[in-house]
């Protein structure tokens, strides 16, 4: 899925974005689930149910990136 040649240790900024985006995906998943369960509108229910799967996939991608970069990260601050 990701090519190894161009893989570099992630920056602090990248780490913060990944963390923020994970919390966005978590919130969106819960909002979709809550709304899909309360709505009487079948079209809305259907699209939100599909979106739950996508938000879970997004979260998995973000976690995967953290795992892939984990071994590359330095253990001491460099500058």
């Amino acid at each position, binding site marked *: 899925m990701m090519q190894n040649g161009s893989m570099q240790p*992630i*920056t602090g900024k990248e780490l913060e974005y990944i963390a923020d985006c994970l919390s*966005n995906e978590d919130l969106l998943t819960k909002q979709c689930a809550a709304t899909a369960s309360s709505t009487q509108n079948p079209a809305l229910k259907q699209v939100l149910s599909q979106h739950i799967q996508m938000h879970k996939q997004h979260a998995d991608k973000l976690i995967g990136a953290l795992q892939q970069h984990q071994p590359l990260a330095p253990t001491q601050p460099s500058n």
Partner: protein
Amino acid sequence: MNSSSTGSFMPDADLAYTILADLKRTVREYSTATTESNCPTVRQMFTDLTNSTLKLQGELYNVMQQNNLYPAPGKALQSDINKQIQTANQTKQECEQFVQQKNINTVPGSPMGQSYGSPLNTSEYSSNPYVR
């Protein structure tokens, strides 16, 4: 609007709008993250997630629009579009002059300084937006 379930937490339109607004914010955050990435694989991931989230936002918007959960925005008047075309053509010509002054060879195939199509023939299309 169409909120049939009286005992629900919030009307469908409000609940869906909350999600739509959060999708919009998430798209923005993904695209900012893309532009501020260092690692190419991280950048590619954020690019993909931006596109995927844009798609979700568009899908939800369409469903809301079709189910009357989102009020349709008002249409722009033809006279306002004509005004913008005029301004755009003028800006474009001034920009072309600026580029020429700098002696930069522009890539052929994209001729600058040429006006975009002038407003449609008013005999075919009524300029009055309320008459079809």
